[in-house]
Structures are given as structure tokens and as C-alpha cells.
């Protein structure tokens, strides 16, 4: 089979994996090697769906022994199958990397023969890259659940970031849709990677030449919309993963109908929940950068995120007693709770107010989104001039700023024969 054809098949099989970032590690290039990584990561292109392309995202093979219902590569699906040999995949990666097409390699795989055999194949690929080509770019490797812990460890010593997909937000959904995978077999490698990273950090503090185990951390992803879990449940799971497994990121992937299994939404009428995914990511940011807890964002009365407004605005509307916040005195954590103020603008406020009191004019210069923030801020004790919005009108007003179409009642087709039906 030609390389072009293989790339087509194996990139197509890998494209539903969302966890494709190149961040979390600063490593400059050294003479005699090729490649470097940057803390913030780097996007090399954006595909037609608007997602960032930073790594060469491929599978080692899409031949699989499992039959997970939501997956394109399941055994029962009739698709062309292929496998890269380690040598040709390395050559392809280096060819792309030298031309600055990519930031590194994202290597995942379907399970060929057994998890151990598949992991060995991946290790062989990464060893050639690191040792023969002396590749110093970014490598993201998927740990294969069920593989021997020693093999997973060797994989982690070669890769920069590791990930294990948690796949679905609850174990009941998992046993329904992925009968071959168990919750335990997913969480075990995750815990192993966490411990490996912590141990490697301790060793590095003693000796800087100690081997680095997954220095850019680990991430995971789950599919949203294929099963009936609420947003509240997903967010608390996310928070638990951050707290207990020290993950760098949790990715959400809106379910795309790739299968006609009777257990899943029907492909014909089903729309992937892209807006829901977007809101979940916004809430995820609140957890990671804005000092929010999952219990604050959603509670029992409100199990799902409001599609009309971002989660921070919703929180602010439910806690109007918290506001207005005085820009010139408030703490960083308090500033972060104001809708329209992000991490950057909050930091700029802290810097700028050391030089003198801030005004609304000044806030605009700092890049604060005043159209949202103005309702929640005072500058030297004063609200924005000419601002007249009653508290009950605030929700409608904020919604209309973001999505005018959502603020109005849904239009209805009038019918002459309503009563007749």
C-alpha cells in the first residue's frame, strides 16, 4: 500500500481524537538534534472545521480487536484498514517537521492483536524518532488501556505528554457502549502515569539528568452527547480528574454519528451538540484558571449549562449580591469572577492600578470587555455613566449581546388549521 493511502486512512481514523495540543513544556533545541517545544504550544494550521492542527495526528494502525459502539475503528465496522511501519512513520514525521508543517507527533493506535503488542509497536516508533533522528520536538502518546505497566512506563519516557481516554462520562455508559473496556482498566494507567510524573519530578529535583517521564503532563478526553449524563455530572467528573489525577487538560468531544448502533443517537436527525461542547469548555476554563469549583457553576436545581449565556455570566446573575466589584481595590480572585474580565485583563488591572486610580476609559484601554463588565464594576465607587438596566432586564440584555437570535422567543409558523388538527 502506498504511503499516501496509508496516511489518508490512518489520519481519517485518528481525527476524532480532540486532545491534540503541543503545550506544557519548554525545551530549546540543542546542536546535533532537531526540534524544540514551547510552553504555550504552537498551532501550525487550522483545518476546515476550525480546529488547530499542531501535531501529525495519526494512528499506528486502525486494525482493532475491540468493538466499541461509538468508535469508527470498531471491529464490526467495514472500513479500509492499514498500519504504518515504525520506519515509514518516522520518516514522514521528520519530513513534515523539517518543513515546519507540524510541531511533533500525536501517536495513538487501535489495538492490534493485544494491548502489549500495540504498545511495543508504538515504543519502537518513538525510539527511532528520539534515538536515530535525535528528534526533540513534541510527542503525544496515547497509553493503551490494558497494556503492561512496564511498557506504559517506557512509552512515557519517550513521550512528552501521555493521555488515556476516559471515553464516556460514567461507568454505566462505558459498560453499555464499550463492553470490552472497564472503568478500572482506564483509571489504572492514568494513576500510573500520575505517579510516574510525580516521581520523575522528585528525581529531577535531585539530579537534572534523571529520565523525564511525560514532562508535559497527561490529558484525557470524553465524548459528550452520546449518553444521557448531565453537564453537572460531567463537570464534577472533570474536577475530580483535575484534583485526583493532576491532569493538564480534559477534552470534550461532541459525539459525531459514526455508527448506526441501536444504543446510540440515530445518524440521520442527530445534530452534534457543538454549543454544549463550547459551554463545557468555558466551564472547564473556569475550573482551571478562574478559581471556580464545579459546585458553584452548576447545582442540583440546575444540572445543565445555559446555552444562551456563558457559565461565568450565569454565575454572576445568580449572585448579584457579590457585585458590583470595585476595580481599584478588589483582589485578583474577585476580579476574575467579573464577566468580561479575563486572566489577562485582571492582571493588567493589578499592574495599572499601582500607577493610579482606574477609570472606565482606562479599563477600555486595558482590553476589558466593558459591554459585559460594565454592569458588575465600579470605578472609585461609581458605576458607568448613563447605565440604566433593571436587574430583571439584565439577563435579556446580556444574552442579546452575545447571540441576538437567542434572546427572542423562538419564531413559530402560524397555521390556519391549528384547531383542526
Amino acid at each position, binding site marked *: 500500500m502506498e*504511503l*499516501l493511502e496509508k*496516511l*489518508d486512512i490512518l*489520519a*481519517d481514523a*485518528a*481525527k*476524532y481524537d480532540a486532545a491534540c495540543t503541543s503545550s506544557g513544556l519548554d525545551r*530549546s*533545541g*540543542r*546542536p*546535533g*538534534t*532537531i*526540534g*524544540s517545544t*514551547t510552553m*504555550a504550544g*504552537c*498551532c*501550525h*494550521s*487550522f*483545518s*476546515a*472545521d*476550525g*480546529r*488547530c*492542527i*499542531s501535531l*501529525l*495526528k495519526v494512528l499506528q494502525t486502525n486494525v482493532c480487536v475491540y468493538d466499541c459502539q461509538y468508535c469508527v475503528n470498531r471491529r464490526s465496522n467495514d472500513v479500509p484498514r492499514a498500519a504504518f511501519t515504525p520506519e515509514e512513520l518516522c520518516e*514522514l514525521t521528520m*519530513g*513534515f517537521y*523539517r*518543513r*515546519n*508543517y507540524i*510541531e511533533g507527533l500525536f501517536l495513538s493506535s487501535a489495538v492490534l492483536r493485544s494491548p502489549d503488542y500495540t504498545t511495543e509497536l508504538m515504543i519502537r516508533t518513538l525510539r527511532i524518532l528520539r534515538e536515530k533522528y535525535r528528534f526533540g520536538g513534541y510527542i503525544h502518546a496515547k497509553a493503551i488501556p490494558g497494556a503492561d505497566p512496564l511498557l506504559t512506563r517506557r512509552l512515557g519516557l519517550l513521550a512528552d505528554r501521555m493521555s488515556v481516554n476516559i471515553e464516556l462520562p460514567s461507568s454505566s455508559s462505558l459498560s453499555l457502549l464499550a463492553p470490552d473496556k472497564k472503568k478500572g482498566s482506564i483509571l489504572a494507567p492514568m494513576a500510573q502515569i500520575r505517579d510516574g510524573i510525580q516521581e520523575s519530578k522528585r528525581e529531577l529535583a535531585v539530579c537534572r539528568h534523571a529520565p523525564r517521564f511525560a514532562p508535559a503532563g497527561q490529558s484525557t478526553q470524553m465524548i459528550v452527547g452520546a449518553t444521557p449524563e448531565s453537564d453537572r455530572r460531567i463537570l464534577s467528573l472533570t474536577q475530580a480528574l483535575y484534583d485526583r489525577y493532576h491532569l493538564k487538560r480534559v477534552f470534550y468531544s*461532541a459525539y*459525531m*454519528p459514526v455508527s448506526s448502533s441501536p444504543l446510540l443517537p440515530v445518524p440521520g436527525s442527530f445534530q*452534534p451538540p*457543538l454549543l454544549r461542547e463550547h459551554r463545557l469548555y468555558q466551564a472547564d476554563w473556569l475550573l482551571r484558571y478562574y478559581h471556580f469549583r464545579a459546585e458553584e457553576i452548576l447545582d442540583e436545581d440546575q444540572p445543565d449549562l445555559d446555552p444562551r449565556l456563558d457559565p461565568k455570566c450565569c454565575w454572576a446573575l445568580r449572585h448579584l449580591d457579590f457585585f458590583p466589584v470595585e476595580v481599584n481595590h478588589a483582589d485578583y480572585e474577585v476580579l476574575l469572577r467579573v464577566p468580561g474580565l479575563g486572566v489577562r485583563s485582571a492582571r*493588567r488591572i493589578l*499592574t*495599572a492600578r*499601582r*500607577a*493610579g486610580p*482606574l*477609570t472606565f*476609559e*482606562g479599563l477600555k*484601554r*486595558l482590553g476589558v470587555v466593558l459591554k459585559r463588565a460594565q454592569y458588575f464594576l465600579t470605578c472609585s465607587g461609581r458605576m458607568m455613566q448613563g447605565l440604566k438596566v433593571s436587574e430583571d432586564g439584565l439577563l435579556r440584555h446580556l444574552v442579546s449581546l452575545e447571540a441576538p437570535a437567542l434572546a427572542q422567543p423562538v419564531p413559530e409558523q402560524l397555521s390556519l388549521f391549528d384547531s383542526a388538527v
Partner: protein
Amino acid sequence: MSWTQVCYRYDGTYSGFLSCVFHSYVDREEPVEFRTPEDMCVSLYPLRTVETDEDHAKRVYRSFAKFGREGQRLAVRCFLTSLPERELWLWRFLRLGYDLGPKIGLALTDPTVDKVRKAVQHLEHEAHQYTGFVRFSELDGALVGEIQPKDRVLPLLRPHFCSRYPQERFVLHDRTHGEALFHRPGPQGWAILPVEDFRMGPAGAEELAYRTLWRTFYDTIAIEGRRNPKCRMTNMPKHYWAMMTEFQKDWDTALL
């Protein structure tokens, strides 16, 4: 006493500009216009032609240490931006900096600092975008790439690419400003030089094969059900596309 208002003519280089700053403080003159020899306009203000003097420039450059780290960064990078009348804004910034000292890094709401900061932010953002969007082609063992930036990003891209490809010979050509970054293996093996009439050679068979592979990958990786051209254009505006392999056809590049 107020300073005399004048128009400075200098050679357009950074050293030239710093020499202007030196003169303005020595002669107590306030520049209201900066001109380069190519400008044919006649000014209403008395014209002073400033000769570039490296020693004067270095003295002014060293004085930027007074502005603190943030202020120094803005003072050095502002000259690379495409801000209209950047020399004038930078001169105002420097004057403010000599007054305020390191506090200039805090004065984010000052109109001059704001203008300079936003321009530098634009420059840094564009440089960051280009670290990803540059595409190299392998021609006779060397990597050749072209960009068309609004700001002069080559000095900012230099450390990134030299660190990334220490063993490669490469050329990165800036079409807008007519200069190129050259690199060869070895310590200090780089230079940014003005170039005229830069042309890429024809691509070989291997290069064409890699371009095809990359285009295939690019087209395959997009999920049809999530198509979102607006999101793509927000993240990667169309003016970058002209130089990117994934949007080119081979007859664009191979037969040059």
C-alpha cells in the same frame, strides 16, 4: 522652556533613529516629524538631517535599562512594528520613560504607552502566528521559506527557528520588507540581510511528494460534520493563506 519643534531626516535604521533621539536631547529639540531620504514631502518645520552615529545610538540604547524590563521591551520592539508614525510615538514613549523611569511599565492607561503597547502586542502576536504558519520547502538540501508579514517579525522569529533547526541550512524571506534570515549550522551561524529579487527554485520530486502528503493530511483531518469556515478564518486570517502549502496548488510553485 519649551523645545524647538523640528523635522528629523535620518536613514531609516534603528541606529539612525536612536541617533535622532540623542540629538533631540543634546540640542533640546522636539521632533514633530520623522522623514527618511525616500520621502519627497516638504515639511513646514525646520529640517535637520541626522547622521547615524553608532556610539550615540549605543548610549541611547543602554539608557533603556532605566525603563524596567517591560518598558525596555516596548522601547526596543516598537521600532519593528508597522504603527503609523511609529518613530514619533516611540519618541514620545521614550520621553515619558525618562520622566517616569521603571514606572512606565505600570502606566498602561496612558495614551502613548497604550498605543505603543498595542503595536508591540500586534507584532508579537504576528510573530507567534508565523512560528506556526511558515512553510519551508527543501531545495537542494536547504530549507527555503517565504512570509509576507505586516510587521518586521524576522528578529523575533530568529531565535525560534535557529533553536529548532540547529543542523539545517535555511533561508526565510520577508517579502514585505525585502530582507531575509539566513542560517547555517554552527554557533552564531545566522544573519538578517536585505535582499533584492528573491525567487524560490523549482521543487524536486521528493518535495512535491511531501507537499501532496501534507495536503492530503490537511484535507482528511477536518471533520465534515463540524465544518466551521468562520472559526478557521478567525484563527488563521486569509492573508496568511497565500504562502501556505495546504492552500497552494503545485502549478503555483513547482514551475517558477
